[in-house]
């Protein structure tokens, strides 16, 4: 099975962006031959699907501009009076600005976590691609095998372990488990195979560069576009993470946005004013990520083509 997957990964190497763009241009020019009726029908189907996918986000943005009472009295997709800034002010004031603390925590977990994870994956993938060493095959088998272990099954035992280590209720308790990311190692290995020529490493070695320097100045540089993909996946993974922080953190000051906002949502049954704050908070937490993510789509697309699977 190992060899199978390996071959499939190698054959599914990422095509350069320009190549793909040219291909889709061919498709479009071919499309001229298709009748106008079909084009309209297909576009209508896709437009209807888009309404389904966009509507909740549009509703969220509109709802965030309403006052607490307008949320219940005005039609969902119509604007009420403009209360966005009042809402943001109320959000920032609530509980000593705890929302921004959660936002900061989410940024710390995601940025620090994804940077460290990407570095760990890059070093491992680079070593797998560039060196031949004892235990290499075993490591590859372990990495591929562990892709079948879903993260959430590990959450409860990881929580038990963190309690034993005394790391529950700490930043490290969430940051360290995220570092173990076999799918990222798989991606880094594929990227290194495609991007780092062994001859170049040999040449650097002959020039007297140390192994670490070769890795940093040649390996990391050549793998950089692939590493952005891993960075994106791990960033999003930490940003969306819910079960582990829910188990591990009891200190409100350490919670990420997901846990904090769902907590507010639950509490809004008894504290109605929290409902609009939950809406505004959700909107503020979704929009920046959506923009960044869509802007960087070239990178995660390359990752998907290369991986053929996801973690």
């Amino acid at each position, binding site marked *: 099975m190992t060899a199978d997957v390996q071959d*499939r990964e190698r054959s599914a190497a990422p*095509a350069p962006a320009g190549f*793909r763009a040219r291909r889709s241009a061919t498709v*479009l020019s071919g*499309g001229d*031959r298709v009748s106008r009726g*079909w084009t309209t029908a*297909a*576009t209508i189907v*896709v437009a209807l*699907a888009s309404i389904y*996918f*966009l509507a*909740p986000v549009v*509703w*969220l943005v509109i709802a965030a501009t309403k006052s607490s009472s307008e949320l*219940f009295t005005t*039609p*969902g997709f119509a604007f009420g009076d403009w209360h966005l800034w009042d809402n943001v002010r109320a959000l920032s004031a609530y509980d000593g600005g705890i929302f921004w603390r959660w936002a900061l925590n989410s940024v710390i977990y995601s940025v620090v976590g994804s940077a460290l994870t990407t570095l760990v994956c890059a*070093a*491992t993938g680079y*070593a*797998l691609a560039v*060196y031949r*060493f004892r235990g290499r095959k075993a490591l590859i088998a372990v990495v591929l095998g562990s892709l*079948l*272990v*879903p993260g959430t*099954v*590990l959450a*409860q*035992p*990881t929580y*038990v*372990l963190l309690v034993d*280590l005394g*790391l529950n209720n700490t930043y*490290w308790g969430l940051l*360290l488990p995220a*570092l*173990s990311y076999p799918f990222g190692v798989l991606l880094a290995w594929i990227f290194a195979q495609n991007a780092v020529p062994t001859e170049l490493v040999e040449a650097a070695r002959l020039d007297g560069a*140390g*192994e*670490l320097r070769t890795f940093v100045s040649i390996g990391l540089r050549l793998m950089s576009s692939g590493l952005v993909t891993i960075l994106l996946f791990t960033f*999003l993974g930490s940003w*969306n993470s*819910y*079960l582990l922080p*829910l*188990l591990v953190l009891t200190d409100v000051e350490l919670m990420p946005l997901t846990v904090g*906002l*769902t907590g507010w*949502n639950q509490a809004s*049954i008894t504290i109605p004013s929290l409902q609009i704050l939950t809406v505004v908070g959700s909107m503020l*937490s*979704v929009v920046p990520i959506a923009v960044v993510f*869509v802007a960087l789509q070239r990178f995660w697309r390359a990752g998907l*083509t290369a991986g*053929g699977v*996801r973690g």
Partner: protein
Amino acid sequence: MVALAPAVVPRRRRALGGGRLAPYLFVAPFVVVFLLFMVAPIVIAVSNAMYSSRSSGLGFGGAETVFVGLQNYATALRDGDFLFGFARVALYGLVQVPVMMLIAAGLALLFDSALVRARRFFQFAVFLPYAVPGVIAALLWGFFYQPSVSPLVQALQGLGVDADLLAPGTVLWSVANVSVWSNAGINMIILFSALQSLPRDTFEAARLDGAGELRMALSLKLPMIAPAVLLTTLSTVIGTLQLFNEPQVLQSITPHIASDWTPNMAIYAVSTLGGDTRLGSAMAVLLGLVTLVVSLVLVRVTNSSSREGL
């Protein structure tokens, strides 16, 4: 405190045989975190599940840990609600997985067919939910399910349909809708990428032979991306078994989602509110085993079909 020593390669490489040592230092950080946060939790779960704490006497002497063998597993397997959770996610998966894959594959084929205008915008729209964290998506749809705020329920009422999207019979599908909404986009992108990497000349030839777009999509393109379809199906099925975020969030707005509604929710409830992490570990091991068996069966199917497909 666990310190992660960075892989520092010694300067005097030759003297220390650094050339041979280097790969081990590069993989060392991963091996350490892998052992600590992948292997150790599994070992801990398995061993933890074999013990039970019993308070001695009046409970003043603190808890006493006793070896109970497989008793925790027996307790979990006798828990009807925990077992019913598996049946529930199975039913959920039987509907949610095909529906989502149909939407994802259908849209991917449409986007690939050159029939769609403004393709980039529509692709963005379909993919956007993936950037919304799963729990925020659940929260968001929660507003769409509550009659007091929901534009959806209000619109249905306007049409004379009195829909309760949070009733015992509908809530499972309301949860399924959230994960279809969240995940269809990413699967569409994966399938679309696979379609775009297919050799175009085949289609040109088929087109010259007079094959329509629909025929080409169903009898040419779909079989060619079978491996990608099976892989996305596999990861969706695994995700289904792990169902937690969406129902856990929607739990706060409906009484019809119990705290042990899915296997993962039961594990969470037992480990936190129930205070029995050992029973929770036993349940986690059981869920892991079921997931592993299902994955292996699906990988088998994937491998044999992709061999035929390629």
